[in-house]
């Protein structure tokens, strides 16, 4: 229970289904939080919701593990020129690993969350499916879950639209019903942003922004770590007036290369073999997949290749994807089913 409307309603629905429910909020971040998740005010909201629903509520302290598995790697990744997804790391290491183990030790049969996704049992196996509301689908951040976790995971709101969820919250009399959804990363103050957060921990690299074809210097940045390939935001148009997109970030050289969209599109995305996971069946070399590489981007047709280096060959060229981003594979024959995931490697 994060204090947000999704997990509040998830709890309420499970209780209405007659289940024996205990609410737990994870204390993950000890610093300031104004993102709508993890502040003391949010814990109070979760606690109050639990009180109103008539269930016990506990707060579990995972701040050390969160620092070790999520925050520190987040900072290291940026320093190494990658663009990490801390929410996915939190899910992998904290919520769906440590918390699942704890739940088992404490005698629970299942863990439920308010994620917009669904678990479906079919032929003795459990599959992760996209949430019913396309705008809110969160199957992407759960792409790493395997049978062990899926078998004991309940996602009560995954089959609903967000407006239905808020409707239930209002019906249940929960005070979070009109609380805005949390945005961005829970440990970064929305009012200050990533750059401020990173600057407190590492030195950022100034760099010139250069057109990859003409060599024209079209700008500069105080923190090249914050620029990611494929990005357009923050890049001024070149002298020809056309938009430029980041094609390469070279921290050591202090140089960011940009190009016109059509010049920077790529045909393949390299993947880190050690990060590759499959929910059930292994996707062999040459498998067709629908690959999604951002939380709310559309999945693209591609072929997974193992020979040589692990990579995705795209059917249609796309903007490059920053190393450190997660790619989740959906089944071609049924695009709502998650088949596996991997992290983008440096190409």
């Amino acid at each position, binding site marked *: 229970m994060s204090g947000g409307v999704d997990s509040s309603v998830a709890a309420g629905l499970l209780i209405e289904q007659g289940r024996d429910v205990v609410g737990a909020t994870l*204390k993950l971040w000890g610093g300031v939080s104004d993102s709508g998740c993890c502040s003391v005010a949010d814990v109070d909201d979760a606690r109050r919701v639990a009180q109103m629903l008539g269930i016990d509520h506990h*707060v579990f*302290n995972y701040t050390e593990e969160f620092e070790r598995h999520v925050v520190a790697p987040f900072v290291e990744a940026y320093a190494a020129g990658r663009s990490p997804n801390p929410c996915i790391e939190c899910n992998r290491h904290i919520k769906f690993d440590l918390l699942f183990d704890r739940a*088992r*030790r404490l005698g629970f049969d299942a863990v439920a969350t308010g994620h917009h996704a669904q678990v479906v049992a079919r032929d003795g196996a459990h599959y992760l499916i996209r949430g019913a509301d396309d705008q809110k689908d969160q199957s992407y951040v759960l792409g790493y879950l395997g049978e062990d976790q899926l078998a004991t995971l309940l996602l009560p709101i995954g089959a609903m639209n967000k407006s239905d969820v808020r409707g239930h919250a209002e019906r249940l009399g929960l005070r979070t019903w009109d609380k805005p959804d949390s945005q961005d990363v829970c440990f970064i103050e929305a009012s200050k942003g990533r750059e401020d957060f990173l600057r407190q921990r590492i030195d950022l690299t100034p760099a010139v922004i250069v057109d990859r074809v003409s060599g024209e210097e079209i700008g500069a940045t105080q923190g090249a770590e914050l620029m990611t390939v494929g990005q357009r935001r923050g890049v001024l148009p070149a002298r020809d007036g056309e938009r430029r997109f980041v094609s390469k970030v070279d921290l050591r050289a202090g140089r960011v290369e940009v190009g016109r969209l059509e010049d920077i599109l790529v045909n393949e995305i390299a993947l880190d073999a050690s990060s590759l996971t499959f929910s059930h069946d292994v996707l062999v070399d040459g498998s067709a997949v629908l690959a999604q590489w951002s939380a709310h981007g559309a999945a693209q047709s591609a072929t997974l290749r193992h020979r040589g280096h692990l990579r995705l060959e795209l059917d249609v060229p796309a903007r490059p994807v920053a190393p450190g981003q997660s790619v989740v594979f959906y089944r071609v024959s049924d695009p709502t089913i998650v088949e596996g995931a991997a992290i983008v490697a440096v190409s």
Partner: protein
Amino acid sequence: MSLYYFDHAASAPRRDEVADAMAPWQRGVVGNPSGSHKAARDARRAVEEARDEVASFVGAKPGGVIFTGGGTESCDLAIAGVTSHHRRTHETSEILISRIEHHAVSDAAEKMARDYDDVRVGFIDVDADGVVDLDSLMSLLSDDTAIVSVMAANNETGVRQPLDGVSALSKSMIPGGVLTHTDAIAAASWVPLAAMTATTDMISICAHKIGGPVNSGALILRSDITLDAVIPGGGQERGRRGGTVDVAAAVGLAAAVRITMKELADVNDRVLDLQEKLVAAVSLIPGCRVTGLGALRVPGTVHVTFEDLASDELLFLLDQEGVCASAAASCSSGAASPSHVLAAMGVSRERARGSLRLSMGAETTDEEVDAVIAILSGVVYRLRSEA
């Protein structure tokens, strides 16, 4: 399901005698003690009688008793009040506190340092048993020192502190002497404070740890110490703490103090036996280490650490069996926080994460201790077999 209340150190059960003493002052006409008419005089008399009792509890003069809205406020008044006054006549003001103080003291000190460039905080080390290291204090004392604050007994571990040694150094090492303060909140149920704090200048106590109401406390000054009021208000308590004096709260504190003084010897004896039994039993649990075993501790507290278990999980399963216990301070979110006290004692992070405090009081029975021993053993076994 029976409730086994082993969290007396967090808040002690409210005594009937306290509720009875407070009742007349919680309904109907209760005069403002600052007024001049009969109702005011009646209220004033109740406050002054309460003041006398609190004074005799610590062996001080009634004029030195300042009623506050709780123990935290009392500690804050001592730290902030003395330091603010000190700043007027000194270029630098240093607050020396032990590394194991309750947040009521440490947060007050750190806030002063944050708010004022000319204030700094120094930390007195403790040894592995959690006892203040007097050599460390000696090396820290200086002409800039405004106040030395060392608690009488630690609220997490129960370990008693050498207040006489602290006072002796503070008075002898610096010309003019340095003011001393002690947070006696955790010690008040167990230790004859008049004797233990005889050489300490300022003492903080609060009611709800000794069977009285919450948000009722006192700062007692042994001598004519000048401090700035933190809540200036209407000049009550001789200008040291503004705001209408809460008659019921003062009466409640006095009633709690009265009961405590009367029972002190008996409760100490009985609970000491319970502590011995509990310590002996938990020592048999593999991997369980009793904290501060080498030090003098108050009878009520048994603090243990496990290297392989998590406090959150121990408390959860104990709670399920009806045992109310705690581990370290709760932070504002309600989660258990890593203990700065254990860290100061050199306890490893792993052990500190597996800490558990069972605290008893006058009401604790032999049967309850037996029950908790069985439940705790069962919980530990269960967590280990699931691992």
